[in-house]
């Protein structure tokens, strides 16, 4: 059993509450991503698990054992830091093996583990180099190799890829997943990068101001955002969130009305003050009006090569739409169609998701990929 349980955990600095009443369980062998903007408390949580920061109140259990009182070295965790934390005067192999030697692992076993991780992380041939003689990607792999060689039950990663360039980051993400598949450690991974969160994690815990906003699979977080914060944080350009009011069988989008189908109308009956949400890539654009389309004017476009973001003004509201074509230009009139199975509504007062009609199920609880990942 290698689960991590956080029960009512609080972290205060004086009167400032950094983490508030956190209740979170990381399943044995799971990869949990702690995602959120800077200052949301995600690194503090990781450091509390590692024993690098004291827990103000609440209980932390690692593998079923309460560890609040245990020092970092007694928790069977290994950690990879953003700055890699390598001994600058030691060679690659010494950096990887030093922790094993000080923990009295026998010589043969040290050699075996070292050779395994160096091969797996493609570090063979770099044994005698010092960190200053390595590229950023190689240093990152050495830090990872050291953590993996420790063979701890719990692998904690604090923004481990943030110092790498885009290509290396993509490669390193795949390596991380591969390493996890081989060793099956319980992994907690802190990042502010939603791509890493979506591609590496079995589940994502999205934080804001020391509280969990969402805890779900990546696909559910994306497709069924629990609240406005989640909808806006995940996705680029971020999800369009428009203040609206229920209008009979539809909702107001500026001065126009977007008609809802019967299922949505039933679900939202009696709910007046809402936010309407739709992701940019789910908006369909056309030059000519279509049934139930909303008229707007193109303000500007951003071309990314593989897609174009089109920013559209409508009665003082701005929409972002992502399309593959580049046939829309500033000043043009366009019509936006919102597929009924791609829209979201949130309660204006609480920001919480208002739910989905039963016939629009996008839940990923039965997602075979997720099931396979944590099996």
């Amino acid at each position, binding site marked *: 059993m290698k689960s991590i349980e956080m029960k009512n955990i609080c972290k205060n*600095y*004086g009167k400032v509450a950094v983490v508030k009443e956190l209740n979170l369980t990381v399943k044995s062998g799971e990869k949990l991503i702690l995602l959120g903007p800077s200052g949301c408390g995600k690194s503090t949580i990781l*450091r*509390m698990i*590692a*024993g*690098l*920061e*004291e827990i*103000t109140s609440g209980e932390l259990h690692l593998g079923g054992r309460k560890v609040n009182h245990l*020092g*970092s*070295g007694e928790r069977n965790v290994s*950690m990879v*830091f953003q*700055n890699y*934390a*390598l*001994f*600058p*005067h*030691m060679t690659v192999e010494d950096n990887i093996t*030093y*922790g094993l*030697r*000080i*923990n*009295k692992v026998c010589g043969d076993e040290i050699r075996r583990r070292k050779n395994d991780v160096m091969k797996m992380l493609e570090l063979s041939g770099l044994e005698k180099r010092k960190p200053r003689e390595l590229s950023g990607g190689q240093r990152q792999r050495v830090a990872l190799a050291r953590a993996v060689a420790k063979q701890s039950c719990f692998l904690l990663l604090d923004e481990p890829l943030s110092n790498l360039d885009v290509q290396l980051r993509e490669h390193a993400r795949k390596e991380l997943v591969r390493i996890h598949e081989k060793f099956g450690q319980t992994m907690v991974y802190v990042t502010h990068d939603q791509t890493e969160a979506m591609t590496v994690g079995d589940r994502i815990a999205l934080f804001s101001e020391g509280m969990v906003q969402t805890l779900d699979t990546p696909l559910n977080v994306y497709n069924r955002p629990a609240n406005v914060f989640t909808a806006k944080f995940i996705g680029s350009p971020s999800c369009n969130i428009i203040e609206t009011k229920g209008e009979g069988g539809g909702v107001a989008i500026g001065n126009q009305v977007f008609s809802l189908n019967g299922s949505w109308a039933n679900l939202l009956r009696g709910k007046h003050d809402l936010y309407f949400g739709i992701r940019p890539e789910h908006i369909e654009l056309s030059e000519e009006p279509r049934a139930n389309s909303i008229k707007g004017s193109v303000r500007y476009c951003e071309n990314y090569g593989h897609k174009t973001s089109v920013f559209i003004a409508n009665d003082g509201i701005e929409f972002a739409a992502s399309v593959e074509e580049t046939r829309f230009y500033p000043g043009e009139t366009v019509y936006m169609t919102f597929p009924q199975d791609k829209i979201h509504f949130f309660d204006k007062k609480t920001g919480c998701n208002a739910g989905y009609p039963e016939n629009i199920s996008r839940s990923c609880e039965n997602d075979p990929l997720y099931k396979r990942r944590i099996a």
Partner: protein
Amino acid sequence: MTLYISVVLLDETWTRNLLSLLENLRGYERIGLEIFPMFHIGGYSRILDKFLPKLAELPITFHEPYYETDHSCKRGSVEYRVTMEHCKNAFDYAARLRAGHIVYHLNNRAISNKDEMLRIALENLIEINDLADSYGLKLLIENTGVSAMNNVLLDENDFVDLFDMLDHDCLIDTGHANCNKWNLGSVMERLQGRIRSYHLHNNFGANDDHNRIFEGTLDLGEFFRNYSRYTPDADIVLEYKCLLTPDIMNDDIEWIKEDVSHVRRMTCAVETSRK
């Protein structure tokens, strides 16, 4: 949190004086001694042996031997052998007095080849760590050295980074941090979960004077604000110059009492604010 005063126990009279100082401080619960051992002085073990039962009644921590000791000496050298002998002695008494941890210096001597010294010190740490383990003791690595003495092996960032690489905990010496111009608040924030104890003393920012807590440029108010914020459970050891020499005066005892009272008030406020 336990409050300690750091002492050498040089002879019988001196030791008796110190123990009566503690009697004088009765009323302040859980004041202990951090023993600064002097095994290089002949007959030192006899003093410890004689007072062992009395010392065993107190909270005790142990500093590793300082004189004739340096962990950045090459293995196999005479210096290394002497260092290990002194350490074995200290560990033996520390274990008998259930000290729990040993304050540890990576180096004491002046820096010659920094990288090489650090390499040797970390290599030696493996053996000394094994030895400490065998006595049931944990090493607390202290921020040692003073710029003016050219014996600072790890600067502020290197020292903090060290604990990303090691599983050990540390002791922060406020006087060393102050005279090396470290940002003590930042160090306390970054190492908070690893800081088990402090050597608390003051100076004027250049020499390691081991002055009273208010005699110097270390801002004690700021220290206790950071202590409360980051390390409210850490122990505090008053490590004063006068307590490390045998010529302690009655006046000294009076102001030590004042300082103990002050630290007590500050740490009690921390404990109250946490409830």
